[in-house]
């Protein structure tokens, strides 16, 4: 679809850390869970990451104590370490279902990183299907891994 100012916005930050570390913060579950839910009255009760193209992350977060009112499932539509990450994000809660596409660009700047984020609102149908497919594969992958360990 055509991106317009009404349907998307950009954010930018500069961090005093190299792109490798910023990339890891998006793709390592222990790090991701520490910044994904900045509201101190909420917390992340579960965080899984499958760090590869077609993989994604799955976060459960919400108000304490349960911390599971919201599910955020993202598929990594583009996974180019440590430069570009495109996420199709499906957020669901009671009666709420919202799909966004987030594009994260990491640009080296001196010893730090400039992060450029674009968030677009997108239509449900096709992307939701894409997300479901991605997550089925991801969960199958986890199941296989668990199976071989036991």
């Amino acid at each position, binding site marked *: 679809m055509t991106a317009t100012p009404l349907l998307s916005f950009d954010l930018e930050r500069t961090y*005093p850390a190299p792109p490798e570390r910023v990339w890891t913060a998006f793709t390592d579950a222990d790090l991701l869970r520490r910044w994904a839910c900045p*509201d101190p009255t909420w917390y992340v009760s579960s965080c899984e990451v499958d760090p590869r193209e077609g993989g994604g992350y799955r976060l459960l977060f919400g108000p304490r104590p349960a911390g599971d009112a919201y599910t955020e499932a993202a598929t990594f539509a583009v996974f180019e370490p440590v430069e570009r990450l495109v996420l199709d994000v499906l957020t669901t809660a009671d009666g709420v279902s*919202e799909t966004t596409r987030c594009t994260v660009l990491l640009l080296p700047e001196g010893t730090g990183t400039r992060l450029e*984020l674009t968030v677009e609102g997108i*239509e449900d149908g096709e992307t939701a299907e894409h997300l479901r497919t991605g997550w089925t594969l991801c969960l199958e992958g986890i199941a296989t891994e668990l199976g071989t360990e036991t």
Partner: protein
Amino acid sequence: MVHHQFAALGDPTRLAIVERLARGPASAGDLASPTTLSLPAVLKHLRVLEDAGLVTTVKRGRVRECRLCDDALVAVAEWTARQQALWSARLDALGTLLEET
């Protein structure tokens, strides 16, 4: 509803119609004349905008008057504000994390 609105606004012609109506009501003919679109094509786009709750049209004699709904873009604005607040807070928290570790 917001997804219907995104879909409706995702088309450049319909976005142009909404931008024009933001300046005041217009007839379907007025909307068609500065473009290469036929009147039936404009009416088709108007129908999509009506279904999305963005535009209302009233037939006055032989003219169909179109106007933007009062709260047309509220859902879109709310979506943007909510998403912007979320990601802004996240990126700040990410900055704090990168400084700490």
